[in-house]
């Protein structure tokens, strides 16, 4: 009730524009400590009385006080209450600190706002101030570790590329697991738009310094109003609005450097020669070569002068590898003067990052605006990788009449992403580590060595790609929405809204005749233009009414239509006359041209009612009916209801005298949400166009499923919101169960049918978990503020059923281990269990994990390895569950401290319980199987009978243990010092003389420290070219995250 009163008082005040200035006594100004601007509408009350006032548009107030002992209480939504004894002062200026006590915060919900205290659903809020200046390209990276139950995982360290975000676990196997993103009320395009295997991220187009707040709707009662797209959670992004009052102007500039979080060590030239030579020698020994000089005690020992042995010249492997060394060495002599190139370091560049942000906000009581402009230029740590963004935004609110408001938000941005090849290409920088340390980078004339035109290597090097190609993705993005809000009677607001997201993208690629992609075609180029027009129109009404003293009611209902069209053209050409002419117009031959248009639509009706009784009993119901073009005619409409209830126990008399408990609310919700994030036409029976010998044809494409419908998630959430000791400690504790049924599953059918799969609603899975949020104010003095926060979430994901009694989706392919198995989490690692090395002969071993008759254990095929039966025949080893690629436990810990002008904030973020599979291990950690350089641990290879090691005997071109198995599976847990910010604001007294508001100098370090057992580059990884709902936790020459340190200054006036 207090809040409602405050709001109406404020409203009244705003409308009349008249302060309650009484005779005179005390006056002053209330400002926000955050940005030193005046706070309008602050409630000021004289303690123990009912008299009070509110501040005007500039934060000024005047109040009559009865005596010098009077205590003024200042309170404002989102700020810590302040009490001041009047004394004999006549001017009292007050600074309010933003509150960590989030109970009184206004929280954005679907189609409205609610006070946090009255929420019956689970919504995590990240304030825009928490993510400002974080030196990363996209907003999801910035919120990593800041919201409970929100798992953010970058695929690799390439800038502007795809990011995996999961809210309360993955709820789908074949449909998307990404949340719905809604920016200022408009659902936006957030899915990958890349033409290559490496996904891009449309959210990186957003300048997140424009964000006022992000609300992450997690449970059904919060999200169900978004119906068929809410199963993965909904992220509502609200951009900043202008505040009435004097214009405040902010300038922020920051500059810094990025380095990889970690380097990996590979063999140097002498180690490389030793290992590869031994691999060749071992082959010779096995073939019976050099029999007279092999030392049986140490068969790996190559005697001196072996090149004079008659077997050497007789097609020996040793001679072969020496020839290979000659080739790899280019102009160098590997025996006397090896190049000893550290290729790993060559994959990285001296990365710089800078960002400039300007914003202005202000207005009158009728018209308010927020305007911003920003330029950001971030180098990736990989050579040739860069991300630039220029953006502008204007948000306008105008009061046409006292009961009619007009709002318009327009954001425009242009991003330019200089990309590198996906992780599976030789041209990607980190695949340089495969090059031999014997190979020099350039010949004596300064020309780059490569694998074809100036050869000294087997693999095409990224060094050549860097200097001879261009791969740029440019995006023009326009987010706009306008709305008209009409209030015909008090409490009823009718809103008509229209908004769109226009994304225009060009992926422009050119590889000249020196590159792998262009050398056989005399230069190759391609261009793909894409335009996505995604619009939403809606009309809805909101009715809020206190029904006397006892009841409050809040009703929302409306209709909405959304349509998205994607229109694209692709052209590729080859045979360029010159390396100077790099656009398609110069291609002598056009080899590919495509164009198509695809679309989807949603028609929705929604309704929500919130009811509050006696300020303590809360009830919410909501429902949405969605229809979508994506579903079969038989199942086009879906209904998504939710119900929730809350009980504010601290309002009850039996708790009101408990001093320690300042707030306690029990809440529970249950509801149904859907997932519609599949392809646009998967329910239709279709034939695709094909070409053979220049003639058009048709090929069977897809079987019809007229029954195809939503994936359905029923979620139960039970939680407590609590505050102790005047809310100095507050938090939330939630338990949830999300049962997803009717999974949109690509049901495998026998290939003999001529089809691979049919999209069907079968199978089920479950996520359940616990989330805890704790925030505390440790110290709160005028000069010293110290707060700390913690969020942690445990989520258990389990596939409950697939097609009938089917137990596994049986992923094909021999490189990866991920699979979908009933009873296990999605993407579980399933494969052969590595058993180390046979000490007698250096063979790689795997545990059989199956019954073996005692008489079959012959010490060769089957042998006892540490009490378990192992085999050197990979095919005889049964596959077993080896680990979970997704962390079960994620957490973030933050603290911030302000002391006089100094501010310090620290964020740690971590994950626990997951494993990482290094798919690149089969090449880089393969005991000298190919000419690929090896990780330095491969020097521990088995050499002679009796050696105890995990690294099998080196055998050139022979696969001794490099098959996909648990050999390449590692603990992926990590703890990261995600963000460290240190700032100093100059004293206001000093700045005031120059008419300045604030001047703050700061330094931010992102990913400063990482603690992990993972031996690869970085534990935050999932190789871009393979990443999917199932292919999780995989590393494949994936770039590590960047450790970025920036210095900046922010000036406001």
């Amino acid at each position, binding site marked *: 009730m207090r809040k409602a009163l405050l709001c109406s008082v404020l409203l009244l005040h705003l409308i009349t524009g008249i302060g309650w200035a009484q005779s005179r006594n005390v006056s002053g100004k209330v400002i926000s400590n955050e940005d030193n601007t005046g706070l309008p509408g602050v409630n000021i009350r004289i303690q123990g009385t009912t008299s009070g006032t509110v501040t005007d548009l500039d934060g000024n107030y005047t109040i009559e006080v009865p005596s010098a002992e009077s205590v003024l209480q200042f309170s404002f939504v989102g700020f810590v209450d302040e009490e001041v004894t009047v004394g004999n002062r006549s001017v009292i200026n007050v600074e309010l600190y933003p509150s960590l006590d989030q109970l009184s915060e206004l929280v954005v919900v679907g189609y409205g706002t609610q006070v946090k205290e009255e929420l019956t659903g689970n919504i995590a809020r990240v304030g825009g101030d928490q993510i400002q200046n974080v030196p990363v390209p996209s907003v999801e990276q910035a919120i990593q570790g800041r919201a409970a139950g929100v798992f953010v995982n970058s695929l690799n360290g390439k800038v502007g590329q795809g990011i995996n975000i999961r809210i309360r676990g993955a709820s789908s196997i074949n449909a998307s697991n990404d949340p719905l993103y809604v920016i200022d009320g408009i659902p936006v395009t957030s899915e990958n738009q890349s033409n290559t295997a490496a996904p891009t991220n449309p959210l990186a187009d957003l300048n997140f310094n424009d964000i006022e707040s992000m609300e992450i709707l997690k449970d059904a009662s919060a999200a169900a109003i978004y119906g068929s797209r809410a199963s993965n959670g909904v992220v509502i992004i609200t951009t900043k609005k202008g505040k009435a009052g004097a214009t405040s102007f902010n300038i922020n500039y920051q500059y810094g450097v990025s380095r990889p979080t970690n380097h990996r060590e590979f063999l140097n030239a002498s180690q490389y020669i030793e290992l590869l030579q031994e691999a060749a020698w071992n082959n010779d020994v096995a073939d019976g070569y050099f029999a007279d000089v092999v030392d049986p005690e140490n068969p790996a020992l190559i005697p001196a002068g072996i090149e004079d042995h008659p077997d050497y010249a007789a097609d020996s492997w040793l001679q072969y590898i020496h020839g290979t060394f000659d080739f790899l060495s280019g102009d160098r002599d590997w025996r006397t003067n090896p190049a000893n190139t550290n290729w790993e370091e060559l994959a990285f560049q001296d990365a710089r990052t800078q960002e400039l942000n300007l914003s202005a906000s202000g207005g009158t009581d009728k018209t308010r605006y927020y305007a911003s402009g920003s330029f950001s230029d971030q180098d990736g740590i990989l050579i040739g990788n860069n991300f630039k963004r220029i953006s502008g935004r204007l948000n306008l609110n105008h009061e046409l009449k006292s009961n009619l408001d007009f709002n318009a938000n327009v954001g425009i941005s242009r991003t330019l992403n200089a990309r590198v090849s996906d992780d599976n290409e030789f041209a990607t920088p980190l695949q340089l580590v495969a090059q031999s340390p014997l190979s020099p980078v350039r010949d004596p004339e300064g020309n780059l060595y490569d694998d074809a035109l100036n050869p000294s290597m087997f693999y095409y090097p990224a060094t050549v790609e860097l200097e001879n190609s261009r791969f740029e993705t440019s995006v023009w993005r326009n987010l706009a929405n306008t709305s008209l809000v009409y209030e015909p009677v008090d409490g009823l607001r009718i809103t008509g809204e229209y908004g769109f997201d226009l994304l225009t993208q060009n992926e422009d690629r050119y590889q000249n005749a020196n590159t792998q992609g262009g050398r056989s075609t005399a230069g190759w180029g391609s261009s793909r233009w894409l335009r996505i027009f995604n619009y939403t129109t809606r009309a809805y009404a909101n009715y809020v009414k206190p029904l006397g003293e006892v009841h409050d009611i809040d009703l929302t209902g409306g209709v909405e239509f959304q349509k998205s069209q994607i229109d694209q053209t692709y052209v590729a050409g080859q045979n360029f006359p010159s390396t100077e002419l790099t656009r398609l117009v110069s291609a002598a031959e056009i080899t590919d041209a495509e164009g198509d248009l695809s679309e989807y*639509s949603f*028609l929705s009706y929604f309704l929500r009612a919130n009811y509050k009784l006696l300020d303590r009993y809360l009830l919410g119901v909501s429902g949405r009916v969605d229809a979508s073009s994506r579903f079969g005619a038989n199942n086009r409409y879906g209904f998504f209801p939710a119900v929730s209830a809350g009980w504010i126990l601290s309002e009850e008399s039996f708790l009101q005298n408990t001093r320690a408990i300042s707030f306690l609310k029990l809440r529970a919700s249950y509801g149904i949400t859907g997932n519609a994030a599949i392809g646009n036409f998967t329910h239709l029976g279709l034939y695709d166009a094909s070409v053979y010998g220049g003639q058009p044809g048709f090929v069977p494409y897809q079987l019809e499923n007229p029954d195809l419908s939503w994936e359905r998630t029923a979620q139960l959430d039970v939680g407590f919101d609590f505050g102790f000791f005047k809310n100095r400690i507050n938090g939330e504790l939630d338990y949830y169960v999300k049962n997803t049924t009717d999974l949109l599953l690509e049901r495998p059918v026998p290939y003999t049918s001529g089809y691979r799969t049919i999209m069907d609603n079968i199978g089920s899975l479950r996520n359940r978990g616990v989330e805890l949020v704790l925030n505390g104010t440790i110290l709160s003095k005028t000069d010293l503020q110290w707060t700390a926060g913690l969020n942690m979430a445990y989520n258990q994901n389990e596939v409950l059923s697939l097609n009938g009694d089917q137990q596994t989706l049986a992923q094909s392919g*021999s490189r990866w281990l991920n699979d979908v198995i009933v009873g296990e989490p999605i993407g579980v690692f399933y494969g052969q269990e590595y058993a180390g090395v046979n000490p007698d002969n250096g063979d790689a071993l795997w545990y059989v994990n199956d019954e073996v008759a005692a008489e079959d254990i012959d010490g060769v095929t089957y042998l006892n390895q540490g009490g378990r039966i192992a085999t050197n025949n990979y095919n005889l080893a049964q596959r077993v569950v080896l680990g979970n690629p997704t962390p079960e436990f994620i957490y973030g810990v933050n603290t911030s401290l302000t002391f006089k002008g100094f501010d310090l904030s620290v964020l740690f973020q971590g994950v626990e319980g997951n494993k990482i599979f290094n798919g690149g291990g089969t090449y880089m950690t393969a005991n000298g199987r*190919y000419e690929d350089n090896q990780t330095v641990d491969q020097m521990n290879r088995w050499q002679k009978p009796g050696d105890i090691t995990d690294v099998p005997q080196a055998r050139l071109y022979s696969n001794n243990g490099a098959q996909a198995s648990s050999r390449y599976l590692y603990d992926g847990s990590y703890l990261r010092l995600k963000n460290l910010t240190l700032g100093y604001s100059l004293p206001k007294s000093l700045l005031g003389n120059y008419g300045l508001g604030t001047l703050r100098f700061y330094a931010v370090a992102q990913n400063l420290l990482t603690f992990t057992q993972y031996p690869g580059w970085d534990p935050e990884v999932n190789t871009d070219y393979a990443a999917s709902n199932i292919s999780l936790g995989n590393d494949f020459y994936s770039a590590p995250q960047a450790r970025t340190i920036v210095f900046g200054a922010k000036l406001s006036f």
Partner: protein
Amino acid sequence: MKYIKYIGFTSLIAGSLLVGSCTDELDLSPTDKLPAESALNTGENIERILLGAYDALSDGDLFGGNALRDSELLGSDGDLQFSGTYGEPAEVWRKELVTSNSDVAERWYSSYYVINATNIVLDNLELVDEEEQGRVQGEALFLRGLAYFELVKYFGKPYSAGNTTTNLAVPIITEPTYEFGDITYPERQTVEAVYARVLEDLQQAEDLLPTSNGVYANKTAAAAILSRAYLQMLNYEGARDAANRGLAYAQGVFSLVPVYENAFNNTTNSSEDVLSTQVTTQDGVNNMQLFFASTRFGGRGDIEIQNQHLSEYEEGDERLALFYSDPVTGESRTGKWVDQYANVNLIRLAELYLTRAEANARLGTEVGASPADDVNLIRERAGLDPIDNPTVDDIVRERFLELAFEGQRVHDMKRLQWDIDGFEYDAFELIFPIPQREIDANESLRQNEGYF
């Protein structure tokens, strides 16, 4: 102010009206794909599906190259070395296939994809223009027979190993899949049954096809595949007669190119190409080039030809001259696959002469021509002196040299019952496993012995 109310109400009403008119917007269909009912409603479209079947056959996993490549890798026997980084072909070369090998699974899938497309065509023949029906039926049967022949060779024990009525090959599907309810869960049929299917399809195709049919299937092609099938079955009369018929159909249509080298790297069919996979810069793949060619020519340079093979050729053999030393690594590579946009040779007329010669020699007959005449035609074209009274061994040797690295090798070795890389010709290591994925999707399937 009254009009203000109107604005509010108007926006609400306009919104509702907008939404009302939007229900039609829920029936959306793709712009780049055809609904099944439209695709199957005219004879023209059925012929387009036939073209689609050719396209499917030209997939990289099938006759875009991998079906030929794997024959060479599996039958390497020291003649070539695979040094590439792709694990799947490396497993084929080492004869260490795992049941999850994706190339193996894709071979299986693309073959049945072709079979389904041909079954659709055969089931809708009545829609096709009457004058074209015979040809369309012949082409569909040819493609289906070819697909089954490829499957039986890789997934079943060789016919030469006997027990053909008990050894299992692959399921036989002759009905199209139009909708989900058409999907079956078939068992594997015996080697004998699949060969019977191959023979029946190809014999019928031979009857129905024209002698000349552009780049598409023709009588000679059907006879040529039949002759291969008979060779596998050690039925030399059948092989001889099929080859002889093929050569007769070829009169005036196909002929040997005068210079051996010119039989390869052609972007349009040479006079010798009875059938080839069509590749253009716009469409199609040539995976033989991808794996065999030097990186200098845009290949991967994965397959190196060993001296053991090169030493088989006589001096002056133009076929030897076609090998080249990789300008990058110095390794020997075959010059048959250099241009990535060249067609992939599937049946060259030269093969028919060699088949007829071998069968005649084995049977002591001279149907069509004497073995010496046929073999010397090939030898002289390669710049070699003719030989008198060639033995079966001479002819077989000539066959291996003439057709080297064109995808026939392991199948010929198996019918000749030669050991390969230390394995007996019918060892399980030389036979593909049934893809694990397929066994998981269809419980009726049994894995090949030796695989788990």
